[in-house]
């Protein structure tokens, strides 16, 4: 597969409710291609976070290739939708999506994390076309997205700001600061995904912290809340549609995911939070991604 949907700006926004089986299959195929890109990029670079990238891949595929109103030839277009990958360490997934979308050549991907590369170890808005905001230090994406959402309202633009956080990331206090402010400012144009893969660097979320349950906390903060399977693209698209229908309050979509999704030996294996596969492991991973699921 090569670039997808390059230069296609859907002014009226995708009507995700009426997605055809073919279109759905195409999105699944894109997600699979992104997974191959991720694992290959990290293998070639010799460093990166494979499992956290794989858990968020389907959400990114749905957003970049179906939902978002963006123009790869005009990455700074003021009225574009924005996406902040608050869990910035999952950037290989974002880089793969941006390259496939046509923001920069696929040949950049193997240069991940190397000197003079446009692809930093964590996303850098000044170096990488299509990266709407610099991230990597956890917890900050919702506050930044709130700023974008408020700017959109002030300027009279209709764009949406999407933020993707991890679950462990929600342990940061700034998250809850942002939730209170977003409620007060009724930012219906702010939509947050939680990549709920259940693991963080040090182990299972439930073992590291008292974070769970997520949804009741978020509901108490006055947000519109949904819970979905984060690997079911139809569910992702439907949830976005419901979130957009909420005009006067921000939305969160808690997406249950599998860390390392798509590569059996990485699934739910936290030793793949960070690290590069060997040649043999890369071959095994590519074989596992061989067909469309």
């Amino acid at each position, binding site marked *: 597969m090569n670039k997808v949907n390059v230069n296609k700006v859907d002014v009226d926004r995708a009507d995700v409710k009426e997605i055809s089986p073919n279109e759905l299959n195409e999105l699944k195929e894109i997600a699979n291609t992104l997974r191959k890109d991720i694992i290959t990029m990290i293998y070639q670079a010799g460093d990166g976070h494979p499992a956290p990238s794989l858990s968020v891949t389907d959400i990114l595929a749905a957003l970049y290739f179906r939902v978002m109103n963006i123009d790869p030839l005009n990455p700074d277009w003021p009225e574009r939708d924005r996406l902040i990958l608050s869990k910035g360490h999952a950037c290989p997934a974002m880089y793969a999506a941006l390259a496939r979308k046509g923001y920069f050549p696929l040949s950049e991907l193997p240069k991940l994390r190397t000197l003079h590369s446009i692809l930093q170890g964590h996303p850098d808005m000044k170096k990488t076309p299509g990266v709407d905001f*610099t991230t990597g230090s956890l917890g900050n994406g919702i506050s930044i997205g709130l700023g974008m959402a408020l700017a959109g309202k002030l300027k009279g633009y209709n764009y949406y700001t999407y933020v993707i956080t991890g679950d462990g990331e929600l342990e940061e206090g700034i998250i809850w600061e942002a939730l209170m402010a977003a409620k007060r400012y009724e930012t219906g144009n702010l939509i947050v995904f939680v990549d709920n893969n259940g693991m963080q660097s040090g182990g299972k979320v439930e073992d590291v912290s008292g974070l769970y349950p997520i949804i009741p906390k978020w509901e108490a903060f006055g947000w519109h809340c949904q819970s979905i399977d984060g690997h079911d693209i139809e569910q992702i698209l439907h949830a976005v549609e419901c979130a957009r229908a909420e005009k006067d309050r921000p939305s969160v979509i808690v997406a249950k995911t599998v860390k390392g999704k798509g590569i059996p030996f990485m699934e739910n294996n936290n030793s793949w939070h960070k690290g590069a596969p060997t040649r043999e492991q890369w071959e095994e991973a590519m074989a596992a991604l061989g067909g469309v699921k």
Partner: protein
Amino acid sequence: MKQQSTRVAFIEKLTELADENPNVVLVCSDSTKVVKADQFIEKYPERVFDMGISEQSAVACAAGLASCGLMPFVATYAGFITMRACEQVRTFVAYPGLNVKFVGANGGIAGGEREGVTHQFFEDLGIMRTIPGITVVVPADASQVSMAVRAVSEINGPAYIRIGSGRDPVVFEDYIPFELGKIRILKEAGTDVAVFTNGYPINRTIEACNILEKKGIKPIIVEVHTLKPLDIEGIAAILEKTGAAVTVEDHNIIGGLGSAIAEVIAEHKPVPLVRVGLRDVFPESGEAEMLLDEYGIGVSDIVNAVETVLRKKERERWNK
């Protein structure tokens, strides 16, 4: 002592900037009263974003606003910007070079005065100075705050302006020009010693130098209102003339003006230096003027510092 509020001066100028530029917005963290924001709020309610008592989120939010073309001024207590939200300032504003301006109240021990250590901020300049790409300004008084606010609005990128308690001594009787990044000679009695200063202690520096002149010592008083970018050339030229330097600041002697001048001295013109400032201790509650006297930033401390540095200068001359 004639006083004029640096906080009021800030908000008046900001309102004026907002009249001219629709992208100017105010971001607070339950600090609208601190920075006397009423007139701004009344005129531009839709351009005030109060994040509540959450400085980290306020700074990150301002970064998001700036990424969409707005020019946010984040205004609250100096320490809550530079310490509590330090990482957000560094990683999400300075690193992407976003056009966010920070205005920090209660700068220095005089700025926090009766509030005590939790609200006295004497590390702010050192912290901001170590972050790449931030313009750091310590205006002398209210009129200079006005000028500095306009000056930083004319550059594209992050800036930090230190303001005070609202009970701030007047230094300049008139609105004299403010040139970002340039030192200003306040008085040149001679070339015996250079006394570098900024902010609140300027008046007492001038008073100390008057005493010194009566003793036959002829100092040159230099205001360094822009700590970054530092006017290295201007400072080195003064050091060349005087061969001795004293710094006077309301800040820890580590990290602020004293350190900045020491760096220029070490790299460009080695001369004896004595630093006057908070001597790396925690102060306490008290009235501003009394606090400065108590914690080593008194007129007599400045006089002593100059006399000490001149003895060093003399000794070095003999050693040569």
